């Protein structure tokens, strides 16, 4: 059914990349609309009632971050950002502005498809509505109603902050959260300048939930950017 094909807007100024994305995503069941500039992209996203935006951060007419902000002004649709390597600051800015995920160029199709799927799933089912209020991944299960955490059968005792940190990650499971976003949600807007607090609590959480805290399976670090919970 063509009508149910998810619509993706590709905002990218480089024609070969647009061509590659169109060809690849088309064959995987997405409907693609292309835009070469930021302005055109925002308009396209609006009139096409798009499901997802793939946005290149280096656009000729406007800053990618501004595009994210412009879209976020009226829509919560997922945005995946494409960026060049070693531009952590730029990525963080885009994520803080409301982008859902990012990919570093060059990337393979497999990676891109995985990100698109996670983003779309997020958009359709909010994590709070997980069945029976229980979040499960691997051996880990969290009873969000009774505030209980289990690793396998064993119940794990968490401090209030550790638990709050875990629920924030669960709420956005599969999505990268910047240090700033997590600090704001867990500690409040006044603590965003002390990222080492977050790192220490994250470390404590890993020691409690991971089998090998030095090689985590659930609580993953996105180097220089933030953390995400793998689902």
């Amino acid at each position, binding site marked *: 059914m063509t009508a149910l094909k998810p619509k993706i807007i590709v905002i990218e100024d480089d024609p070969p990349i647009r061509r590659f994305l169109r060809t690849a995503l088309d064959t995987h069941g997405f409907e693609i609309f292309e835009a070469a500039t930021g302005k055109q992209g925002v308009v396209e996203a609006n009139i096409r009632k798009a499901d997802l935006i793939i946005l290149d951060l280096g656009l000729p007419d406007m800053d990618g971050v501004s595009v994210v902000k412009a879209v976020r002004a009226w829509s919560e649709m997922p945005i995946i950002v494409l960026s060049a*390597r*070693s531009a*952590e600051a730029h990525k963080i800015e885009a994520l803080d502005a409301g982008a859902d995920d990012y990919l570093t160029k*060059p990337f*393979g199709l497999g990676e891109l498809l995985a990100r698109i799927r996670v983003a779309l799933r997020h958009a359709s089912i909010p994590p709070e509505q997980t069945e029976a209020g229980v979040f499960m991944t691997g051996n880990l299960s969290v009873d969000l109603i009774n505030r209980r955490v289990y690793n396998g059968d064993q119940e794990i005792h968490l*401090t*209030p*902050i*550790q638990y709050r940190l875990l629920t924030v990650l669960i709420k956005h499971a599969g999505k990268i959260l910047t240090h700033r976003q997590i600090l704001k949600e867990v500690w409040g807007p006044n603590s965003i300048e*002390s*990222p*080492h*607090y977050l*790192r*220490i609590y*994250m*470390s*404590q959480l*890993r020691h409690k939930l991971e089998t*090998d*805290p*030095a*090689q*985590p399976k659930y609580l*993953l*670090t996105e*180097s*220089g950017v933030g953390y995400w919970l793998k689902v």
Partner: protein
Amino acid sequence: MSSVARPDPDELLARVEKEQAKSRRGHLKIFFGAAAGVGKTFAMLQAAHERRAENLDVIVGLVETHGRAETKALLEELEVLPPKQIEYRGTVLREFDLDAALKRRPSIILVDELAHTNAPGSRHPKRWQDIEELLDAGIDVYTALNVQHLESLNDDIGQIAGIRIWETVPDTVFEEADEVELVDLPPDELLLRLREGKVYLPQQAQEAIRNFFRKGNLIALRELALRQTAHRVDAQMLDYREDNAIREVWQVSERILVCIGPNTLAERLVRAGKRFAVSLRADWIVVYVETPELQRLPTEKRDAVLRVLRTAEQLGAETTTLSSPNLSEAIIKFSSERNVTKIMMGKPSRRGWRRFVLGSVVDTLIVEAHNINIYLLGSPHPHREEEEKLQLTTRRKEVLPGLLQRSKTRKKGYYLGYCWAVGVTLICAVLARLMHGSFEQSNLAMIFLLGVALIAARFGRGPSVLASVLGVLVFDFFFVTPFHSFAVSDTQYLVTLSAMLIVAMLISNLTANVRSQAKVAAHRERRAAVLYAMSKDLAAAESEAEIVRTAVRHMHVEFGSRNAILFPDANGRIIYPNERSIPESLAGADLSVAQWVFDHNEMAGQGTTTLPGTKAIYFPIDAGNTMLGVLVLEPVNLRRVFLPEQQKLLDTFLRLIAQALSRIRLADQAKTVQLQIETEGLRNSLLSSISHDLRTPLATIVGSASTLAEDDGSLKAEDKIELSRAIYDEARRMSNLVSNILDMARLDAGMIQLHKEWYPLEEIIGTVLTRFGNRTSDRQVKVTLPPGIPMIYVDAVMIEQVLTNLLENALRYTPAGSPLEITAEMSADWVEISLADRGPGIPAGLENRLFEKFYRLREETAQSGVGLGLAICLAIVAVHGGSIRAHNRAGGGAIFSFLLPHEHQPPEIVHEE
């Protein structure tokens, strides 16, 4: 034919001339006359009009019309620079505005009265110095000068006219002038003009005729002026002959040594020496020999000598102060060293029997100096000497006021010595009284001699002479019959007493000499020690800032001054230093003075002839041909800087500083060159490496892609997949290479900004291991960390890059399945992270080469990277202030480890639990 490309030859010539004008020194033309009123200013203005008619940019800097109507008329059509108004003790003085002239930059400027003395507070005390600066700036100058103002003629004029002229111009200015135009007027005509009121206003004229403008005077002055001019023409002729290689006239060059002493003859000797040197066209050296006796001279006399030496320098002589106990010996030694052919000195002061007994320097020189002609200058009349002495003092006051400060402590010690002399004589008398009767009288005399010797050894000549006289008197009074009377009954006692007096005097003389020689030796030793200490410290200095600190400190110790060394910026403008100052530093030096000193390579400030009103003294620091900077010194006491021996020391200091600075600059230059060579080499190896490493995967990609693109349907499905996979793999590999090269380039260019924060060590290692994913699944990777949650303050992305590169290498160069071990050790000051493997290890001697750029253990195998991985590690660890090393592991394998210093204490965390 195009008319655009061809420049007009005249225009071209004009441009070339203009260019030359900028670089050359200006021409000086002097309108020279015998006396005021001969028409110098008039002739000068006429010449200016002629130049103006030739379309040259002529302006009048300053011209005194003295109310003469015809001169005024000539002035009217010319551009006149407004004079500078200087207020001095309530009156406003009109002075030549040097800065305005330099700014205006005309081709020719007229500045009247070369010998004028500027108002206090001007940049230079004398106008001729202003003109020197104009010439240096490439501006031509017309000026006027009367013969009586020439420095070397000062004595002659004084004798002829009976008055002494204080406003003088060094002969060098006159000699180096490019053109001298004699403006001549017979005395009768001049007197006529004077009476007609054309020279001075009528009431002044009468007085002038009576005093200076006597006909006899005018004739003599005219003769002097004509002779000077003729002399110049003669010199020009000689120059011409020399330039045109007509050499036979000249055999050997003469060198004249003028020896001066601390007497009034000195100044006359210098002037006579100058004239002598000019007439012989010889080099001349003025020397002052400081013997231990001369060192005891009162301050005023020593300052007078200093001033005469300065005058000599201004007259173009080389000056030297020698210090030696033996005058004639020092002069002979110096003469033979410098190939002196003629010695000029004053007539011997000792006469009659004193000369016969004690000898004279002149006599010794006549006997011992072979091949040297000796010229003697007679003393003037005694009464004139007195007069000159007086004037000598007043002039000195005018020029070097600071030198007059005398030390009071010395005087105190002086009187103390005399008190001791009296006291010791009294003690001797008491002792002798006790011994009187039981000892012979000659032994009693010995007691007094002993006292004299003691006083001489301790307090020097004066007190010991006093002790000698007192001793003889006391001995005569108390111990020679008749007692208690100075009368002597037995004539043999007269012999005893006179012998006693002579012996006592000799003792005091000898002891005092020994003492002062010891003092001189101690002084020299101290100076040598000071120089040694400073040169040692300067040699150890490794940076410009360190040299400055060392120099400033040592100068402070030696001269008691606060000092500063100023350097120019890239545009040659002297600026204040950025370095932290030390207590001995001088703050608030005058940059404009420093700039002047730097531009002219001449000292300035207090005690010099340039800007003497400034508080500090400014010395240029030059290393041969390049100017390095300026030393500023604020003296507590000018004597400590300007005494000959101190000045020599200061000169040596300046040379040492200049040497040290050039050494550092050369080292820096060498380093830069070395760096350039290395960069060049690096660029070459980078190019060859990159071209190889990028072309190899590109070949695969282009080949495979073209096969797919040009497929006519004959390719099998699995072939297509295989080709696509090859493209994918090679593109990935290329991507890694490119990002490595970019990382390296950014690190090399210093473009990396570290974002340091506190990270748990575990998280950094975890992130890297997670990134490798299942590529390490066949390996056992053991992580051993210190207990707790150890935190490090780093840029996590960078340190992860280091670990990634190390792990990448380990996976690449060790056999599949062999175990890896990551360990971290921590102390209060550092953390060391190591990756150990069980691979083949590192070939001996290559431990350090591994970290070089583009170094690969095995050349160009399929698996090899570009050879940048470890170089990137090294660079990242280095920007973190750490170190990295590789060595073989006990039991086989290699260990790569890097050490990072802790910069801060880890943050305090409030735990919930």
